[in-house]
């Protein structure tokens, strides 16, 4: 990943990965987005991405228990972009390994799995995953 033009003033939230905490994570990220000139549309898309990604961590990373997660927000300049990193040390899981759902199927045959990560891939500029030092590390980047 390109880190050359990353500013050093990132903010971080460490929190128990539970569904109830999605709201707190969203508020944390939104408060960071409010410091920059982020469009409402980009903010909505980022909020949806948080819902999809943090709910995955809450449900599966430490299943059947829960554990901690860290969410980091960094802002890049020129072009201005937001990079949000989700880190957990649960079960290794690469959400990008999943095949995209067939979105051309009718209602009856429409698969429901994989839709969340697909939406994130469609609305963010990039989504990257790495497993490092026992941690799942997922970056999403959105030009704002």
């Amino acid at each position, binding site marked *: 990943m390109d880190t050359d033009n990353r500013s050093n003033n990132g903010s971080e939230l460490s929190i128990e990965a539970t569904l109830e905490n*999605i709201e707190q994570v969203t508020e944390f990220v939104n408060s960071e987005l409010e410091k920059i000139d982020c469009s409402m549309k980009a903010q909505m898309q980022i909020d*949806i991405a948080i819902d999809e990604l943090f709910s995955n961590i809450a449900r599966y990373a430490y299943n059947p228990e829960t554990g901690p997660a860290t969410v980091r927000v960094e802002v890049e300049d020129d072009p201005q972009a937001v990079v949000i990193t989700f880190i957990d040390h649960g079960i290794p899981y690469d959400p990008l390994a999943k095949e995209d759902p067939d979105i*051309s199927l009718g*209602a*009856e045959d429409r698969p429901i799995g994989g839709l*969340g990560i697909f*939406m994130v891939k469609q609305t963010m500029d990039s989504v990257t995953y790495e497993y490092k030092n026992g941690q799942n590390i997922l970056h999403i980047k959105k030009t704002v």
Partner: protein
Amino acid sequence: MLDIKKEVNGSEATFALEGRLDTITSPDFENELKGVIDGLTSITMDLAKLEYISSAGLRVLLGAQKVMNKQGSMKLINVNDTIMEIFEVTGFADILTIG
């Protein structure tokens, strides 16, 4: 947060959604739907004040659409640009009736 306004007249129901249809709120909406969907021939969902919808919300809409395909019809009204774009990128624009 999600505010659900429900109006049932005989076999027709209207749901007006305000707020966010996401991981936390979608089960509430699903329960509201389940409580009344038996015997309905028409469902209208007014999404004018829906701010966003995540895949959890799409699942509920898909489930309702499947039921209504068998027993009547379902349509979504006042779909704003943000929500419409989500329907488009997920292919839901093709399986939901948007008018």
